[in-house]
């Protein structure tokens, strides 16, 4: 038996009775004092996560986090089941509604396993301990003579009893004190660290999984909203005559803008008996808009502006040693400017929600990554009590950060309230692409000096990008601390380094998108390091290992410090698996990138060919160190998916604005990588018993720069701007 690291003294577990006759365990999940968490998340200490064992042996485990392909409905419950010695085939999952009693439910930031691995183990251990006590009591034997195995408690004499048969005794017992809990030795894990298929895989494959878009209620109406093409513009006047003539259209309603970060954008809603009629009716509206201040936004002009801003001194956010002296004494100077456009999440399932407002109560069904924030928005909008608002979480057809911003939830509520019936608001794909929370646009300037030995002596990194904070505090026009960290904590051994931030006001809603700031910084750092290797006339792999430097734990503001040995290790593993240095077919080459994000270490080596000026990615060798692994298959599939996500953004990812309006509108002009562009992804997961770290996002940032570095090896051309379609390469 082993102990669990980092158990907070503030956590507790207790038993509560249940009318259905089952045994329920509730356990506080706020066991990490993670600085990322807002203090308010630590205040509420109501019991939360649940285990329910029924007398028929069926075991219901609650998933408090949202399932969007991240595998969380399988991974977290499997931790409980393992520690409890339960039989996975007896488990079913209940999706939690949005409620603080479950702790932090925000399925974002690659946090689910990081935050909940230990609490889940405790819940399992607690349940097992109580079942053992129950069996000991029934048999009148010492607890030490009893053990748990696959849904049974065994006695040393050879007799055994099923979990379900112990429920009536177990539920009368006191919850054991936390410090008496024992935990399985990791070598005895049955599910943790193994491959488990998604518990929902059959429902996905037979079409019965209910996504938000699939929710149906009796008498439910469908609604589409015309929103101003320019962010935060408003309706001057509108004419609904043509709309009301369309068969199936029931009503047209004006929805005001709600000036909150996750508030509705406002517009004109068309309510109909089916989605198609709502879309058609919406298209038939004649609306005169007041475009407002953001109509000045032209993303090409804007790129010029922020590029100028990084070509002059910015706000200094880090200054170590003396960069100017290093530059003056350099043998060689390398400098580059990087430009990356806005991106949209474009999850396969568009934003949508069903709401049913009845008097002062409201029930919502939504594909949301953030059910508690959704609930807050509804409570604020209806000015009602929290208890009167229920937010049910459906399956999410992808999220990537878009669905942690529940502006669409409030829209459904506003419509349901207005029509006094259940309403589903459906965003068309065009709505999704044109009215999102965009991944930031960025300009970056890097300059470094090399000495005669090919060592980097000075390093300057300037960047300008509209901050996510601008969505929460309008007017903020410089990057915030969390957006600076990945530049100032660059994992290279640098005696002289400076980081400066340039001005960049926001003209659209800026939001986090899978791997967030690590997209621009992972890109520039990895491409620039490769350029330095070429300038130093060294092998990019050897050069990079040298640049990362000696083994050390880097001081950062984060609760988890990064470890350069682990960083170099993933790079070496990826290189070994790719057989870095081996001869590749003509027109093919390898490129590498390595990045630390969400506390995980990821390296990818990509094999690219450039034939007739067209790029193809053939193989991706990814190595990830994410500490303790819960479900190996999920880690693997996330790395596979991240490679494709990275290829999509490298090949096609570009959202532009003219006169404040987004110019793209569907998968035809905001394209995605397709099956013929998908590489073979070879994943190696580092064996580790360190605390678990992020998986959903850290596989993304390495892909685009590795492709750029490989293209350079084939063509001798260095690209600093994405997407590659702009360069005629796809």
């Amino acid at each position, binding site marked *: 038996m082993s102990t669990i690291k980092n158990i907070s003294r503030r956590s507790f577990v207790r038993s509560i009775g249940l009318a259905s006759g089952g045994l329920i365990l509730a356990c506080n999940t706020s066991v990490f004092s993670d600085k990322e968490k807002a203090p308010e998340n630590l205040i509420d200490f109501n019991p939360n996560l649940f285990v329910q064992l029924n007398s028929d042996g069926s075991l219901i485990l609650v998933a408090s986090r949202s*399932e*969007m*392909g*991240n*595998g969380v409905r399988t991974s977290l419950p499997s931790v409980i089941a393992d520690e409890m010695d339960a039989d996975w085939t007896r488990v079913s999952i209940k999706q939690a509604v949005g409620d603080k009693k479950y702790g932090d439910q925000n399925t974002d930031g690659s946090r689910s396993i990081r935050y909940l691995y230990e609490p889940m183990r405790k819940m399992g251990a607690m349940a097992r301990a109580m079942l053992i006590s129950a069996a000991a009591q029934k048999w009148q034997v010492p607890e030490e003579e009893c053990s748990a195995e696959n849904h049974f408690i065994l006695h040393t004499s050879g007799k055994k009893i099923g979990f379900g048969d112990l429920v009536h005794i177990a539920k009368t017992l006191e919850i054991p004190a936390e410090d008496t809990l024992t935990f399985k030795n990791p070598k005895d894990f049955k599910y943790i660290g193994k491959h488990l*298929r*998604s518990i*929902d*895989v*059959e*429902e*996905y*494959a*037979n*079409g*019965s*999984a*209910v*996504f938000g*878009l699939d929710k*149906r209620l009796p008498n439910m109406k*469908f609604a589409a909203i015309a929103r101003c093409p320019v962010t935060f513009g408003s309706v001057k006047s509108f004419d609904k005559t043509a709309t009301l003539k369309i*068969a*199936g259209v029931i009503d047209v309603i004006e929805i005001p803008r709600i000036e909150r970060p996750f508030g509705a954008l406002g517009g004109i809603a068309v309510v109909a008996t*089916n*989605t*198609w009629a709502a*879309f058609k009716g919406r298209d038939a509206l004649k609306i005169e808009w007041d475009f407002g201040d953001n109509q000045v936004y032209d993303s090409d002009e804007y790129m010029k502006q922020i590029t100028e801003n990084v070509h002059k001194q910015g706000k200094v956010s880090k200054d170590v040693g003396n960069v100017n002296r290093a530059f003056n004494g350099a043998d060689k100077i390398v400098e580059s400017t990087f430009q990356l456009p806005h991106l949209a999440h*474009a*999850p*396969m*399932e568009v934003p949508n929600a069903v709401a049913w407002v009845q008097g002062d109560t409201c029930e919502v069904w939504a594909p949301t990554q953030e059910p508690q924030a959704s609930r807050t928005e509804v409570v604020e909008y209806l000015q009602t009590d929290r208890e009167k608002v229920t937010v049910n979480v459906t*399956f*999410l*057809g*992808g*999220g*990537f950060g878009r669905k942690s911003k529940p502006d669409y939830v409030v829209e459904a509520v506003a419509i349901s309230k207005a029509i006094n019936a259940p309403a589903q608001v*459906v965003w*068309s*794909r065009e709505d999704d692409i044109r009215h999102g929370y965009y991944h930031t646009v960025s300009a970056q300037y890097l300059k470094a000096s090399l000495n005669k030995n090919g060592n980097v002596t000075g390093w300057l990194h300037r960047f300008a990008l509209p901050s996510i904070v601008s969505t929460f505090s309008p007017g903020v026009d410089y990057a915030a601390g969390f957006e600076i960290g990945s530049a100032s904590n660059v994992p290279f051994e640098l005696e002289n380094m400076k980081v400066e931030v340039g001005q960049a006001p926001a003209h659209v809603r800026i939001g986090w998108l899978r791997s967030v700031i690590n997209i621009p910084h992972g890109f520039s750092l990895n491409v620039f390091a490769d350029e330095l290797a070429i300038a130093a006339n060294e092998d990019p792999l050897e050069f990079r290992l040298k640049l990362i430097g000696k083994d050390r734990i880097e001081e950062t503001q984060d609760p988890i410090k990064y470890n350069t040995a682990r960083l170099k290790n993933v790079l070496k593993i990826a290189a070994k698996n790719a057989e870095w240095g081996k001869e590749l077919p003509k027109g093919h080459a390898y490129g590498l990138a390595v990045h630390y994000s969400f506390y995980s270490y990821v390296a990818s080596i990509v094999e690219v060919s450039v034939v007739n000026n067209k790029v193809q990615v053939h193989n991706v060798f990814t190595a990830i160190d994410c500490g303790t692994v819960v479900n190996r*298959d999920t880690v693997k*599939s*996330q790395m*596979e*998916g*991240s490679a*494709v*996500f990275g290829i999509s953004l490298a090949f096609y990812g570009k959202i532009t604005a003219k006169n404040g309006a987004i110019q793209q509108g*569907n*998968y*035809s002009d905001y394209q*995605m*990588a*397709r*099956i013929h562009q*998908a*590489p*073979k*992804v070879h994943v190696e997961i580092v064996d580790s018993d360190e605390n678990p770290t992020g998986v959903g996002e850290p596989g993304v940032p390495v892909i685009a720069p590795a492709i750029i570095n490989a293209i350079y090896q084939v063509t001798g051309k260095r690209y600093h701007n994405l997407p590659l379609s702009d360069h005629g390469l796809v």
Partner: protein
Amino acid sequence: MITLRINGEKHKIDVDPTMPLLWAIRDIIGLTGTKYGCGEGVCGSCKVLLDNSPVQSCMIPVSVAEDKNITTIEGESRNLQLLQESWAELNVPQCGFCQPGQLIAATALLDKNDNPTDEDINAAMIGNICRCGTYQRIKNAIHRTVELKNQN
């Protein structure tokens, strides 16, 4: 009134004949396994079999589908069922949203090609976007299905 024959069952519906089949299936008849992803024929989420050919149901007016056999993900077909088993075995789906369309496209492929190559698969599946990036597993699961068929 338009009569649609979906998965062997007849549905009489009173809708505008230009309504895309997708919305008739989802909103009028209530079979929600067929998904909306783009509405303009470029993502494949809405694929169904129309007289055994894969079509984007968002692009087909209901009037055109009348009197044809429509198979959705909820329907029955030997290849579809075998593919679904391989999909589960290889744990293909991530978010799962695109998978009904992927499975319909793969069913149509196996219906006319017993042993597709990677190139055949690319050609048959190029119209289906998976934003989660499950393409590699989709390919493997199609090959796996063929392997299982040949074993039996």
